[in-house]
């Protein structure tokens, strides 16, 4: 009995020492949670993103942290599943969490209210709820550098350029093949509005999860509707069967444009030669020539500390993970300028997000010049310019085939965003804050 009591006391003491040590360590570091997926049907696309995200913070830590504050990164595997996403959020949320990266539109939808109540910023970079770009209604959600609505507008803009102007879109057919989920449905409202405005007919084709089987969809597209152009909002496993089935019905690849989540090496490589000519949007560079990526190679991978294989560095999704981490790091950096160079709360880092001003000079000092467009965020506008470019797969590399394209934000998208945000506010009983 005595021995048992002694053992329990020793265990208790050990637990207290560990907890104290943990608190001491955690208090010195800025915590960054990551809701990633390394398992499930979408793991092949989730893994390189997660590796890029993790490696960037390792690189910053190797260089002394952000203004001397080390980043403590912890990951939770959501398997691209909304329930598990919420579970991961609940496990990782804490006042010192810098920002949540849900990496799923569905999970973003599920976390908007929770994260807002917990005062933790959500960075849904190039995905999520487009209406959340309105910072007056969604003070803790950031959609930079572009939303799905911007993506849809950019695709139509690119098509119009190729057809010789918007006036030539009249009578044309544009199809959308989309993942039948909150993610895939996001561009529909914009494409419908654009169809009405420019006189083209719009044909949506949903594909059920996970999208392994799309024969019927492509028979309709390739043999019945025969659209002049086809856009795709696919993810993971859905993308390569879409490209293969498109080729199987003889659909021209250079008239098939995916959103930025349908334009990675993982999407085109399984389709082999059939994917040559396929296009997609992107909002950052690929390759390893950027100084920040070079730092990852030398300070992280050469030190034997790389999260994944070295050869994936520079691929589309790896670099997207890097960009996502770099934006969070920059928000922390900006927030430190406002609140002090110590670990900050989510609320303080939100201020950093809203004051983000990543101009060309800043990109240069971040080692990311030419990698991405400059980003300016305000209290009301959480998206920024919304620009992206079109890239094309040549069989071994993605090559840009357009300049940066600016969506029609002021003339079309911003009013739609404000309306959707106002509807959300009315539904939830939110009083929009004033942004002056």
């Amino acid at each position, binding site marked *: 009995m005595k021995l048992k009591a002694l053992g329990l006391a020793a265990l208790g003491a050990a637990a207290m020492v560990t907890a104290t040590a943990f608190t001491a360590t955690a208090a010195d570091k800025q915590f960054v949670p990551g809701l990633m997926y390394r398992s499930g049907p979408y793991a092949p696309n989730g893994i390189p993103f997660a590796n890029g995200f993790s490696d960037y913070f390792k690189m910053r830590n190797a260089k002394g942290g952000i203004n001397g504050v080390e980043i403590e990164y912890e990951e939770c595997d959501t398997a691209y599943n909304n329930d598990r996403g919420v579970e991961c959020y609940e496990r990782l949320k804490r006042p010192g969490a810098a920002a949540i990266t849900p990496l799923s539109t569905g999970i973003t939808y599920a976390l908007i209210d929770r994260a807002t109540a917990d005062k933790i910023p959500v960075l849904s970079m190039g995905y999520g709820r487009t209406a959340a770009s309105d910072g007056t209604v969604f003070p803790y959600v950031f959609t930079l550098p572009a939303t799905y609505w911007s993506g849809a507008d950019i695709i139509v803009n690119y098509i119009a350029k190729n057809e010789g102007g918007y006036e030539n879109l009249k009578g044309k057919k544009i199809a959308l093949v989309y993942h039948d989920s909150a993610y895939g449905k996001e561009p529909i409202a914009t494409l419908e509005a654009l169809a009405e405005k420019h006189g083209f007919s719009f044909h949506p084709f949903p594909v059920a999860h996970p999208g392994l089987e799309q024969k019927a969809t492509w028979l309709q597209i390739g*043999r019945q509707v025969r659209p002049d152009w086809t856009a795709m909002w696919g993810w993971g496993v859905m993308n390569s069967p879409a490209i293969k089935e498109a080729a199987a019905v003889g659909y021209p690849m250079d008239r098939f444009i995916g959103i930025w989540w349908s334009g990675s090496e993982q999407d085109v490589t399984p389709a082999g030669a059939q994917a040559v000519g396929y296009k997609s949007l992107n909002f950052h560079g690929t390759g390893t020539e950027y100084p920040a990526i070079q730092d990852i190679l030398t300070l992280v991978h050469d030190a034997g500390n790389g999260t994944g294989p070295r050869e994936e560095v520079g691929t589309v999704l790896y670099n997207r993970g890097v960009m996502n981490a770099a934006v969070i790091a920059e928000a922390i950096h900006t927030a430190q300028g406002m609140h002090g160079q110590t670990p900050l709360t989510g609320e303080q880092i939100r201020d950093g997000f809203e004051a983000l001003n990543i101009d060309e000079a800043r990109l240069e000092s971040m080692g990311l010049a030419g990698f991405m467009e400059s980003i300016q965020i305000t209290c009301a506008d959480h998206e920024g310019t919304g620009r992206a470019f079109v890239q094309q797969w040549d069989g071994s590399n993605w090559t840009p085939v357009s300049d940066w394209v600016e969506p029609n934000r002021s003339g079309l998208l911003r009013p739609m965003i404000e309306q959707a945000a106002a509807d959300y506010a009315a539904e939830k009983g939110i009083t929009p804050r004033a942004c002056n």
Partner: protein
Amino acid sequence: MNPTALRFGLWLLVTPLLIAALGLGFKGLAAVDSSLFFAWGYFIEVLIAGLLQGVMYSLVALGFVLIFKASGIFNFAQGSMVLFAALTMVGFIEMGLHWTLAFVVTAAVMVLLALAIERVVLRPLVNQPHIILFMATIGIFYFLDGFGQTLWGSDVKVLDIGISKAPIIVAEGVFENGLLINSFDLVAALVGAVLVAGLAVFFQYTRVGRALRAVADDHQAALSVGIPLKTIWAIVWSVAGIVALVAGIMWGSKAGVQFSLALIALKALPVLILGGFTSIPGAIVGGLIIGAGEQLAEVFLGPIFGGAIQDWFAYMLALVFLLFRPQGLFGEKIIERI
């Protein structure tokens, strides 16, 4: 009145009425949208694509049938066996083996896997209720899924065995735009046909095949005449492993070898419901009906329901068949006397 004469009279009366009703129905549909409902070439094209797709489902369903037939176990792990086989074959190809050699080596791996499953999982569970064996196959599913990816990685892999995927246009003179048929699907159908013929010969004419059928009919009776149940189980799991390999090659070539390949087992379930769990012809005919039914539904009914209906439609179709034939189209009718 003579019942035969009555039946004959009814047929005479009802048949023309039915034809007239169908004709009027089609004419009505044509009036609604002629391009949608009366492009016969397109209809036939979708039907052929669906039938060929159905063969792909049958390939997966066959593995389930083999194991259920011999042991009464619903092998939940069949999908992950397909994934594991495809991952292993790609792994060997990436090591530099020619695909034919990789096929042989992978087939050997699948046989070894079958022996291991029989020795480690099934043998200790002999005489346990079927639900226990079913639960064990769920364990095998998760083990194979994780082990395969740990061994060969989670990346999407390319499996190219040189089958052309180019579209073929036939009957151009008959239908406007002709009929488009995917050459890969044709090859897959051929492979499926050869596999079924091979299995039929194996079951019908070989000593082992007869023993398998005996075990399927009655375990106890088979044991009493000296058929070794454990050996039969090892053989049937090996055959199911090789069927999984063929399905993995066809599906892997089509959609890439990746985690989701395990999910195609879900596409085989309506085929099994419809065709019966114990019939090889049932797996084939069930596959053809489900394949054609879901493709036609997606193309012609999908727009009415907003699209993406083929998955649930396949199950609904199977359930409708169950209303009339609870044992499936070719399943054995179970008559239990009290």
